[in-house]
C-alpha cells in the first residue's frame, strides 16, 4: 500500500480508530492490532512475501531467545552467524543473485570464455533491505548484550513489521523502538497534531516536489543524448530534488504516522542539502542507514581507531557497501565510491567533524564562506546523483560528458517555471526550518489558528493541484 493512495487514506483512520477506541485498554491487543495492520499494509502489495517477514522475525526472535540461554562464546557466535546468514541470504538471493550471475558472465566473456547465463526472474520484495537490517540490529545487540531479548513475540513481530516504517525506513534500532511496544501508549494532543503536520509536509515533499521533478528528470535522463549541457544540468538538479523529496518525504510521513499512534521514530534526514562538506552531508542524509553502517560495520572493522590506512580502508568499505545496499548495479557502487573519494580529503586532513552544528546557527542568512561551502558540497552531490539515476555507468559518463560541454552555457530547453518557483519556495521553507526536525515543525506556531490553518489548507490544496496525473512509486521502495 502506498502512502499516497486512496487505500491508505481509508486504512489509516480505520486503524487509528481501532487502536485508540477499541483496543486501547489492552496493550497486547493493541500490539496485535499493529501486527495485523502492518501485515495488511504489506500484503496489499504482495501477500506472498509476508511469509519472508514472518520467517525472518521468527528466526531472530528464536535466536535472540537462545542467545540469552547460553553463555558459551562459540555457541553464541554460531547463533549470531545463523541469523546473519539467514537474513543476508534472503537479501542476497532476492536482490543480488542476478547481478552476480551477470557480472560473472561479463567477466568470463571479457577474458574470452563466454558462458551461458542462468539468471532467474526474481521479484524484489518491497522493503526487504530495510526490515532485514532492522531485525539484524536486534540480534547483534542481543549478542553484544546491549539489549535483553524479548519474550513478548507480539511486540517483536510488531517491531519488525511496524507499518509506517516497514518498507522504506527509518531503519529503527531495537534498543529504541522495541521498548516502546512494552509500554502503554498515551494519546497526546500535541504529539498527534505534530504528527499530522509532519505527514502534511512529507506529502508536500513527495507529491509536489518529488513527483513533479520526476516528470522532468525522467524526460531528460531517458533521452539524455538529445539534450544540451544546460538541460542535462536541469535534469540532474531535478533528480537531486526528486530523490530528496521522495525519500525524506516518505520518512516524514512514516514518522508523523507513528506519532499518531504514540510512537517516536528517529529523524532520518536533517536538511542535507544545507551541508557545508560531504562529511556533514552524510551525517544528515539517510541518518538511520549511515548510523547502522557506522555501528554494525565501521566500528567492528576497527573504525577510526587504527592508523590512516585502516581509516581509509574502512571508509571505502562503508561507502561501497552503502552503494551496493541501494541496488544490484554498478552505478550504485560507483556512486558509493565517488562519495568515499569526496570524503577522503576531509578524513586525511582530520576535518570530517568540523561542521557539527546547524549552518548559520545564530543568523538568518549564511555567510559568504558558508554559501560557497554549501554550493560546492551540493555540486559534488549532484554529480554523484547522476550515477545513482543513470541506467548504466556508460550512460552516466556520457551524461556527464554532455553536461560539461560548451552547451552548458546555453539556455535550457526544459525549464518549467511553475516547478522552479515551487522548488525555490521549498528551499526557502526548508531553510527557515533547518533547526527543527522537519521544516514546518514550528512554522507559524506563534500565529493565530486562522493563519496556521489557512497555511495548512494552502499546502493541502497545492498537494492536490500539483499531484501528477499518475501515482508515482516511492524511489526507495525498489531498495
Amino acid at each position, binding site marked *: 500500500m502506498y502512502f499516497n493512495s*486512496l487505500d491508505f487514506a481509508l486504512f489509516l483512520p480505520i486503524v487509528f480508530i481501532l487502536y*485508540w477506541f477499541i483496543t486501547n485498554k489492552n496493550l497486547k491487543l493493541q500490539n496485535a492490532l499493529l501486527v495485523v495492520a502492518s501485515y495488511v499494509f504489506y500484503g496489499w502489495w504482495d501477500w506472498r512475501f509476508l511469509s519472508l517477514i514472518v520467517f525472518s522475525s521468527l528466526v531472530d526472535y528464536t535466536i535472540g531467545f537462545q542467545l540469552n540461554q547460553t553463555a558459551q562464546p562459540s555457541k553464541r557466535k554460531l547463533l549470531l552467524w545463523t541469523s546473519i546468514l539467514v537474513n543476508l541470504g534472503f537479501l542476497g538471493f532476492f536482490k543480488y543473485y542476478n547481478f552476480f550471475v551477470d557480472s560473472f558472465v561479463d567477466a568470463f566473456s571479457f577474458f574470452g570464455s563466454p558462458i551461458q547465463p542462468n539468471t532467474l526472474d526474481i521479484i524484489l520484495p518491497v522493503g526487504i533491505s530495510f526490515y532485514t537490517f532492522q531485525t539484524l540490529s536486534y540480534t547483534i545487540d542481543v549478542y553484544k548484550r546491549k539489549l535483553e531479548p524479548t519474550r513478548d513475540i507480539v511486540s517483536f513481530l510488531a517491531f519488525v513489521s511496524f507499518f509506517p516504517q516497514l518498507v522504506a525506513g527509518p531503519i529503527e534500532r531495537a534498543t529504541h523502538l522495541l521498548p516502546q511496544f512494552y509500554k502503554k501508549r498515551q*494519546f497526546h*494532543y500535541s504529539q*498527534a*497534531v505534530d504528527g*499530522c503536520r509532519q505527514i502534511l509536509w512529507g506529502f508536500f515533499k513527495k507529491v509536489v516536489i518529488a513527483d513533479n521533478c520526476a516528470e522532468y528528470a525522467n524526460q531528460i535522463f531517458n533521452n539524455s543524448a538529445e539534450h544540451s549541457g544546460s538541460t542535462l544540468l536541469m535534469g540532474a538538479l531535478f533528480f537531486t530534488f526528486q530523490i530528496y523529496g521522495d525519500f525524506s518525504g516518505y520518512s516524514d510521513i512514516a514518522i508523523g504516522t507513528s506519532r499518531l499512534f504514540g510512537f517516536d521514530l528517529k529523524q532520518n534526514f536533517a536538511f542535507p542539502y544545507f551541508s557545508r562538506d560531504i562529511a556533514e552531508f552524510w551525517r544528515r542524509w539517510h541518518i538511520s542507514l549511515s548510523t547502522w553502517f557506522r555501528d554494525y560495520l565501521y566500528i567492528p572493522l576497527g573504525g577510526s581507531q587504527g592508523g590512516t590506512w585502516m581509516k581509509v580502508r574502512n571508509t571505502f568499505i562503508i561507502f561501497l557497501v552503502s552503494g551496493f545496499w541501494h541496488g544490484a548495479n554498478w552505478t550504485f557502487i560507483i556512486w558509493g565510491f565517488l562519495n568515499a573519494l569526496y570524503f577522503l580529503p576531509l578524513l586525511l586532513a582530520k576535518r570530517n567533524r568540523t561542521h557539527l552544528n546547524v549552518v548559520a546557527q545564530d543568523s538568518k542568512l549564511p555567510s559568504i564562506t558558508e554559501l560557497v561551502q554549501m554550493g560546492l558540497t551540493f555540486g559534488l552531490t549532484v554529480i554523484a546523483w547522476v550515477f545513482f539515476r543513470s541506467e548504466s555507468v556508460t550512460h552516466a559518463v556520457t551524461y556527464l560528458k554532455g553536461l560539461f560541454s560548451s552547451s552548458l552555457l546555453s539556455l535550457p530547453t526544459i525549464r518549467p517555471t*511553475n516547478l522552479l518557483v515551487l522548488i525555490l519556495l521549498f528551499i526557502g521553507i526548508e531553510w527557515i526550518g533547518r533547526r527543527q526536525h522537519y521544516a514546518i515543525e514550528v512554522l507559524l506556531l506563534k500565529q493565530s489558528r486562522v493563519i496556521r*490553518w489557512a497555511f*495548512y*489548507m494552502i499546502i*493541502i*490544496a497545492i498537494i*492536490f*493541484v*500539483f*499531484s501528477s*496525473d*499518475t*501515482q508515482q512509486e516511492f524511489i526507495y521502495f525498489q531498495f
Partner: protein
Amino acid sequence: MKLFLRHILLFGVLFFVVEKGLYFFIQNAPQKEHDKRLELILEGKMKKDIVIIGSSRGANNISAKQLEDETGMSCYNLSYRGSSVVFHEFILKTLILHNNKPKKVLLVIDNGYQFLKNHSLHFRFDRLFPLKNYSYINDKLIENNKKSYISNFLYSVKINREDFSLKPKRVYEVNVMTSHGSKLLSGKNNEKLDYKSEIKSYDINDEELHKLNSFKAIQEMCSKNDINLYFVFTPGLMSFDNDFLTRFKELVNADEKIIVYDTLNKRYKEKNIYRDHTHMFSNGAEIFTSEISEFINSNK
C-alpha cells in the same frame, strides 16, 4: 482525543467549504480552448449526417465542408491529431450517447500503424482535462487513473495546474480549425521531402489487443445503431502498404466499405501537395475529399 477529533473534523469541513472557490477556475477551463468539438458533442450539439473520425490524417486530409457541399449531407470532422483507435472508440461512443446518431461514419485508418504500439498515437486525455466538470468526462478520467475518485467531491483534486491561467490557450498553426472541424494545412512544402518507396513489412505479432478490441467495438456500435461505416485510407508520399491492407480486410465485415485513395492518380505523387509524408496541404485534401464524395454519392 476528543479535542483532536473535533479539530480534525472542523478543519476538514472548513477545507471542504473553502476549496469550493476553485469552481471558478474549473468552469472557466472549457472557454479557454480553441477546439470545442468534444464540448459540442457533450452538449448534444453535434447533429450531423456524416462524421469523420481519425487522427491527424483525418483532420488534415479531409475537408468536411467540401464533403458537405458535394454530398448534400451535413458533415463534421472529429479527427484529433495523435489520437489512437481507442480514442476514436471513445469519441464515437460519446457522440452516440449524447447526440442523434450520424448516418455515416468515416473512420480514417492510420495505414500500417492502426493496431501497432506507436508512441505518437495516444488516447488524448489532454482533450478531456478541460471538460472534467462534466461528470461523464470525470468518470472517464477516474476509470483511467488520470484522476482520483475523490475528485467527485473535492475541486482541488479535480482541478489541473493549467486551469489557473485565465488566458485562452495558445493555438499552433497546425491546430487551427475550420468551421466544420477539419484542420486544413497551408504553407510551403519541405523541399527535401522525397517519395518513400520502402515500407516496413507488417508483423501481426506487434498488434495490440486493446486496439483491436476498440476497432471491433467501433464496428459493433455502428452495426447496432444502423450506421454505415467507411474505412478511409488517405494518400501519402510513399508506397501503399498492401500487407497492412490484406490484414485489415480480415477484420472488416461484409457490409462495411473501404475507401482507398486512387493509387494510380499521379497527383498524389507530387510533393507540392504534401506537408510531410502522410499529411497533405489543403490543395491535396481537396483532391482526396472529392474522391470520397464521389464514393459516397455512388453508394447512397
